């Protein structure tokens, strides 16, 4: 008798509990809006078009090491002769010093090699900005017949055949040697390439003694002559596109137009993008000649003059030219040998 009643009460209690649990309905939650603060709090370079470089975030040293090894490994190329570093010589400010780069089998590329240092800070890659990340960028030189002339499949196979690579990959990537791991390792390494700590950055942060009077005068001239209209930001350029030849036709003056001269037009097909190129960073400009996408200008002074003539629509006197060059030399930090 009492057993029946107990069982009945227990069943009803369980029913109530179960029903209550099931009746707790989910809510259409409205999380508080994360107020996006405009970071105008403490800006040491307030009002300046140029800004100091921030160091790269924390990176996995093992991945950096693996990426560097890959970066330096010529076996990834079609004939085993060309590595990333063949053109992006880490000991030469990330460039090869040639007007046009050399690929496998002595092939000559169409464009001048941009530096790999601080490239990761640029929102787009290549002269025509056709990709927006390092990871996406890697495929270009790897597969281009005039550069490494290989393929991901071949590169991965090569890596998989090497036990030391297999171990290194396995240490950092659970999936082992894969395209994603390969790309990620290279990109992580490239993110470690930075030229922070330049004298100019110290100057921007308030250390007026970091630059000489001439250098400071050069910076003023850089701004006054309108260079800083495009070469601005932390990377002193690299964050926008601009048409080459605003005041004069650069290509007519040079003596003819080649397909690669169409620039961003080759990506978008828009008429207004003809001859538009990514504005290059000037952080390592002092050491990355020859200049421009075609590598047609050998010296920095000449490059300054070309820019003044075609982009700024004025003449720059020798004095100012020198000042600007001096200033440009203060932009590189110690990171890039």
């Amino acid at each position: 008798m009492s057993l029946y009643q107990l069982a009945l009460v227990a069943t009803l209690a369980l029913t109530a509990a179960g029903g209550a649990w099931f009746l707790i309905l989910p809510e259409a939650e409205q999380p508080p809006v994360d107020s996006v603060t405009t970071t105008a709090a403490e800006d040491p370079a307030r009002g300046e078009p140029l800004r100091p470089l921030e160091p790269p975030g924390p990176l996995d040293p093992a991945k950096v090491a693996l990426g560097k090894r890959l970066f330096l490994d010529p076996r990834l190329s079609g004939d085993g002769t060309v590595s990333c570093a063949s053109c992006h010589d880490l000991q030469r400010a990330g460039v090869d010093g040639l007007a046009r780069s050399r690929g496998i089998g002595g092939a000559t590329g169409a464009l001048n090699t941009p530096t790999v240092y601080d490239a990761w800070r640029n929102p787009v890659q290549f002269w025509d900005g056709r990709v927006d990340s390092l990871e996406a960028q890697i495929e270009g030189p790897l597969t281009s017949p005039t550069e490494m002339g290989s393929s991901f499949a071949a590169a991965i196979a090569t890596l998989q055949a090497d036990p030391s690579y297999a171990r290194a990959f396995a240490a950092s990537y659970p999936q082992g040697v894969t395209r994603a791991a390969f790309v990620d390792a290279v990109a992580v390494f490239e993110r470690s390439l930075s030229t922070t700590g330049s004298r100019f950055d110290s100057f921007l942060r308030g250390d007026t003694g970091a630059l000489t009077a001439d250098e400071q005068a050069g910076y003023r001239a850089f701004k006054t002559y309108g260079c800083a209209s495009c070469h601005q930001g932390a990377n002193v350029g690299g964050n926008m596109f601009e048409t080459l030849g605003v005041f004069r036709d650069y290509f007519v003056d040079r003596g003819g137009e080649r397909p690669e001269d169409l620039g961003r037009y080759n990506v978008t097909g828009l008429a207004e993008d003809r001859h538009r190129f990514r504005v290059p960073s000037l952080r390592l400009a002092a050491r990355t000649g020859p200049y421009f996408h075609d590598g047609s200008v050998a010296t920095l002074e000449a490059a300054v003059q070309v820019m003044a003539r075609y982009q700024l629509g004025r003449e720059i006197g020798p004095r100012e030219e020198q000042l600007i060059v001096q200033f440009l030399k203060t932009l590189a930090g110690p990171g890039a040998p």
Partner: protein
Amino acid sequence: VRPASRVAAGAALLAVLGLLVVQSRDAARASFLQVAEGTRLESALDARLNEDVLRSRQGLRRDYDALVGTAGHLRRLAHDVRRDAPADPAVSSALDAADEARSRKEALLDRFQSVSSVLTNSVSYLPVAIDAVLAATAGEPSAALRGPLVDLRHDALRYMLKPGPDLAAVVADDLAALERAPAPPHLEKDLAAVGAHARIVLRFAPVVDATLEELLAVPTAARYHALQDALRAARERQVRTVSLSRLLLGALVTAFALSVALLMARLRRRALRLDRERGDVARLNEELEGRVLLRTQDLARANEALAAASRSKSEFLANMSHEIRTPMAAVLGYADLLLDHGLGATERLGYVQTIRRNGEHLLTLLNDILDLSKIEAGKATVESIPCSPARIVVDVASLMRVRAVEKKLWFEIDYLTPVPETICGDPTRLRQILTNLLGNAVKFTDMGGVRVLVRCDGRDSPRPRISFCVADTGIGLTAEQIEGLFQPFTQADSSTTRRFGGTGLGLTICQRFARMLGGDITVESTPGQGSAFTLTVETGPLDGVPMYADLEEAGPSEPPERAPTPAELTGLRVLLAEDGADNQRLLSMFLRQTGALVTVADNGRMAVDGALSALAAGEPFDVILMDMQMPVLDGYGATASLRARAYERPIVALTAHAMADDRARCLAAGCDDYLTKPVDKASLYATVRRAAAGWRDRHAQPPALPPPLAALLVSELADDPEMQALVDDYVAALPDRTEALGSAVASADREAIGCLAHQLKGSAGSYGFMSITDAAAELERVAHAGEIAEIRRRAGELTSLCARARGRAP
């Protein structure tokens, strides 16, 4: 339901349950929150992008890092949101729309950066360049050059602040004026630069603003809001699904739990009910057992009563049969006697009177039976008419007085109280009852007399009664006899009835009628001293009825009787055991007429004594005619007694019982034959003769003279000389065998009879006497189960055959 569909239903139920459980987990919540958060961030970043673009345009921010960073952030965010967004068509299209707007904005931003940079450069340089030319021409007379320059500087600045077609025309005019003005050669380059920058301003200012306007007009905010709405709607749908699933699951669980609870409650109720019912059943069983016990007892009692009633009824029927046949036999017998022409007038008169008396008795008997059956059937009625009690008493008394006088009894009638002249009643029934009572009194009284006492009680009461007390000095009644006196079909002692006659129904009928007349019959008696039967009946109202205190008397008389004779059974000694005087007379007369010597015994005891003493005296009766129903010792008892004393001579049963088993019963008692009353004279003679002859045949001495030749039985082996001696020896031994057979038959030793018959059957054939073998076989066949008479007959035949057997032809 087939198992397959049951399985399918079960699987479907499980699938539904699983679906509900999966749905109710709300797994998409986290990703929804993430996506919602992402879109909110997109909205915020988009707003910041607009802000940054405006800031850039206003020259408040001179680098594009923030702008580009925000755009990149937005791009990555869009990618993440698209990756994490729930698969919902509305959300997808909202995502597409937002992406499209974002891409358009990005493209416009890209363009804005380019044109804005160019414009910024020219805008900042143009005044500087103009000032430089003005400074270089200071103090020179070329006012024509300075004027347009100043105008250009002024108008270009205005235009830069607010670009428009009107100002553009003004600036263009200024430019044209400047170009028309004569320029000194050393200033040509500078003036060209001023013109170029002014044209850049003219060209790019509207483009920058148009781009900016277009950029700001891109409905990214609306798209993001739409996306958020779509997400919210999707989430709401999701929440609805989840809620519904949880509700359904909850309902299912609740329903299940309720079912379990209900099931348990029902089980409990059923258990309780079973307990209760078990108790009920137990109680019911006990009750039933009790009832069955009671009923069984009732049934046993009823069965006993029924058996008793059945016995009584059978006995009653037997009595009735006897009672009817007895007077009927007298009537028919005397009627036969009347047919004899050699009778005198006196004899005839006696016969006729006997016939009449027996007829009357018969009538009484039949009336009694009819009355009783009427009463039993509830169809008897009583009248209520004025009649005189005195008259009735006198009428009845006048009849009875004669008998009383015949028996030398005194007979008195007294009024104890005055008696009304008339009462209301049924005179016929009253007369019947009184006749019965008085008849009984006379019948059962041998010495003393009968007195009738009449009294009337409660004359003034509403129900006055008159009572008639008939008191006698007769044999009286025991308490047990009184108890059964008024019961129908009950006769305590048939011998009593036999001795005193009557149907045994009279008192029963009388009491029934008395009760119908509003009264009763009561009895007081002392055995051996007499009885007093009191009839009490209602008189009806007696107002004004004259009362008498005196009586009148009346009475007839009766003639006497005698007996005649023909002749046939001459010299045969016959003992007639018969209690009925009429039958005694009739049968003795029949027998004497044939020359038989008849001795009469009144009862079985006398018959036994007579038969044995006659046997002992060497004058045994040839035949005993034994009435089976007699007082003192009935025929069965007498026959059994005689046979028990080795009385072997024929006994013929006389019985009125027409019942099926009467004959068998008589023969079983030891009778040789059987006669049914009323006795037919011819069959009487035949039976008596046959019985006597049968005995004589069986017990005749071996004949002194050789039987006639034809009667001799010669062995079939008579001609075989080798067998001659053997056959002679066998024949010589035959008398010993027949003698043994005779004594076995006399003692009714069936086993011995069978054994002897068997030996004869087996041997006789071997010695050439096939007929003896046949007869012996016949005897053997009936020896064990056949009737004694049959055995005797067969034994007789066999004996005579053996007597005729001869070894050789004479």
